[in-house]
């Protein structure tokens, strides 16, 4: 197993390198200029040029690339071109907010999704099933930002139950949770739809499996069959999917962070894209890539346990 993890990590290096290179090129090919963005519209061409020089943007591209890789190898993510604060600080600040959101959404998804999925599977082709499936299909058709706007409209504008803006620091847990609820619900409800559908499909597959039939044939009660055998078997592939959902959540959090004006990796990225803050943007992508590699690795390991057919030498 350890050998397998080591091998996967080594294999990830060329992938990461490819990602870094692509990102390095992409952010620079895009039109726009961070120096103009940083100085504002009043600045003279002279001041802009002076800043470009200081930012190191007048260096040849290959040199900038070598510097970027060198810094990266030393674990230095550089400084923001706009605010000149270390990028690592910015990321360290926003990352917990994004992870908190993804985690809460996943929790909501699992808590609501699994029971719904099991229920619709067990009562297959009943009214419960149809309604459950229709609702979950609507759920996964929802663009996250639109659901966010609806929740804001109903629970923050019409009925002022929750704050709609911003966030509170983690040192004030109660406040922090209060701010978290609407954004987490936005992602969590959509997540619920996916997990419910997945669970239904997995449970159905398992219920039609031979050993469940055998269990039934042995005269075991339906409930016992369901809980002792089917559910347990179903839980594992479902939970292993959480890793994959987590990647998606990190992506969809971009929109939710925009709508709810929450700090987060996604909001930082959109801001950096718009301000042409190359160093911040490429560093965020590096962090995304690392998160994805780690989540994939974990998912992969979990799969190894789930599916006995997958074996690594």
């Amino acid at each position: 197993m350890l050998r397998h993890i080591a091998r996967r990590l080594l294999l990830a290096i060329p992938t990461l390198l490819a990602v870094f290179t692509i990102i390095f090129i992409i952010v620079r090919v895009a039109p726009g200029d961070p120096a103009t963005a940083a100085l504002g519209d009043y600045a003279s061409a002279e001041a802009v040029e002076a800043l470009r020089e200081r930012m190191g943007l007048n260096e040849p591209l290959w040199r900038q690339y070598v510097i970027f890789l060198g810094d990266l190898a030393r674990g230095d993510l550089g400084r923001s071109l706009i605010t000149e604060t270390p990028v690592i600080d910015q990321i360290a600040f926003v990352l917990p907010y994004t992870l908190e959101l993804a985690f809460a959404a996943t929790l909501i998804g699992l808590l609501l999704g699994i029971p719904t999925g099991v229920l619709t599977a067990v009562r297959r082709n009943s009214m419960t099933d149809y309604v459950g499936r229709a609702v979950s299909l609507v759920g996964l058709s929802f663009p996250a930002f639109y659901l966010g706007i609806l929740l804001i409209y109903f629970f923050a504008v019409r009925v002022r139950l929750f704050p709609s803006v911003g966030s509170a620091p983690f040192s004030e847990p109660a406040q922090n949770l209060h701010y978290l609820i609407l954004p987490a619900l936005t992602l969590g409800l959509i997540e619920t739809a996916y997990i419910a559908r997945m669970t239904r499909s997995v449970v159905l597959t398992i219920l039609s499996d031979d050993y469940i039939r055998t269990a039934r044939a042995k005269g075991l009660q339906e409930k016992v069959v369901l809980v002792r055998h089917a559910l347990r078997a179903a839980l594992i592939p479902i939970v292993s999917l959480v890793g994959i959902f987590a990647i998606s959540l990190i992506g969809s959090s971009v929109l939710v962070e925009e709508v709810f004006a929450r700090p987060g990796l996604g909001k930082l990225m959109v801001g950096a894209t718009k301000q042409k803050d190359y160093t911040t943007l490429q560093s965020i992508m590096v962090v995304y890539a690392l998160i994805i590699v780690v989540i994939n690795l974990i998912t992969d390991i979990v799969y190894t346990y789930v599916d006995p057919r997958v074996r690594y030498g």
Partner: protein
Amino acid sequence: MTRRRIVAIVLAMAVFMSGALTGLVGSATAQEGDRPVLRFAVNAADLASLDPHFASGTQDRTVADMVFNGLVRFVPGNSAEIEPDLATEIPTPEEVDGKQVWTFTLREGVMCHPSAETEAYELTAEDVVYSLQKSAVPDRSAYSRDYTGMTVEAVDDYTVAITLDQPLSETLFLPKVANYSGGFIVCSQAVEALGDEAFRTAPAGTGPFMFESYTPQNSVVLTANDDYFRGAPQLGGVEVRYIADPSSRELGLQGGELDLAAGVNEAQWVDRINAEGNIVADVFGVAEAVWVNMNVTQEPLDDPLVREAIALAINREEHAALRGEPVSELIYSVVPAQLMPGGLTMEEAEEAGVLYQQDIERARELLAEAGYPDGFSMDLITSEMTDYAANYEVLQAELAEIGITLNLTVVDHATMHAQIREDVNPIVIYVAFRPNANVYLSQFFHSDAIVVEGEAPITNFSHYSAIDDLIEQARAETDPEAQAELWKQANIQILKDFAAYPLYMQNLVYARVPELDYGHELVSSVALYPQITEMTTLATE
């Protein structure tokens, strides 16, 4: 087997959770005794620079205004007037060896804020010299052009003499040493100890509020400077939050999480907020002018008939309606007459024959006369920001009436600014406030400032060069009235040549809880926000 599976799942979840938990180590917000802390949301996702010599966005000017002072200042809430700030009085210039010299006497006992590297210390002439010299260095200031040709010397600890290569009128000189842009006085010891880079996010000045902390993408916390020379602030501090989404800011105000927030620059928004009654929307100056620049050297706009046709296709009321009165007011020259000397009023424009009201028929004729009976098409980029995008879209519809097709590409704001400076747009709609007519005219209509090709390119998108002499003449004129007259002539010439078409100017809109009292009457502010001073109060229950 089952147990191993569970262990694996738990492991996977634990890794995910530990990430979330690392965030639980944060810093507590400081409580400022029994004085309330003002929670203020600005319209931006983050700061760009708190070094006042780089502060150009509204969100940065806001913080600079609270942290720093100038030698003189625009009266809080009324930027039409200037009064002494760090200086004890406004001097009258003297002639010394054929050069104009302005000598300022400083207040004594003004304390610089402590910084991470320095203790609080008394501000002296040395700091003022350091600061104004810093403003003149291109890579230490975005406003370096405005501070060249200026020699600053410390006569003694409390006296500063500024010698100008070219004499300037009061109208042009005082804003350079006021609490605006390069005129803000920084504390030299703090800048030197921290370095320019760190100073950008940890400023130290002499103002009523001191920088406490900055949280990227989230907020800047300022605390009361109890040693402030005008007295200790009534507020315990100000928490400036960066919230780019207008509806979020509004909801934050209504939900009681904010006390003050940048509003939406629209009359309908103002009316609705004020009708709802629980929060108050204020409309005030200074307004930003909105106008259309046309490149007089590029085909087909190089033909004055085509430019005239475009001018006659435009209905400025339609553009102004995007904001609605009183947020928007019509302007008849790029320099807004309502705000500063040198602009044209409607009567003046009419008298000079440069009012140009919409006349579609005539516009079509002119276009045909110029050899474009079927019109033509043109590619333009616009910023995604409403001010730009909406005006371009209205222009698109107006020009469609006379057969001119505008193909618009929406890009993000920074990209638009970079691109139009590379001369990609033959027509540029611009939204800007500049402190006086000279800056407007020099930056947008002097040949030196022509984008790409000019000697010192800034924002002359029209490639216009017909009023250089008028601008220079006015700049050297020390009599304010004669100066204003020259600026008016320059404005008339711009319109006669159809280098630009003025649309409207838009006032600022901020919303607050009724308990917030700015401590001054709010008419206009060059800091572009309803200034928070030591007098500002927030009533609690």
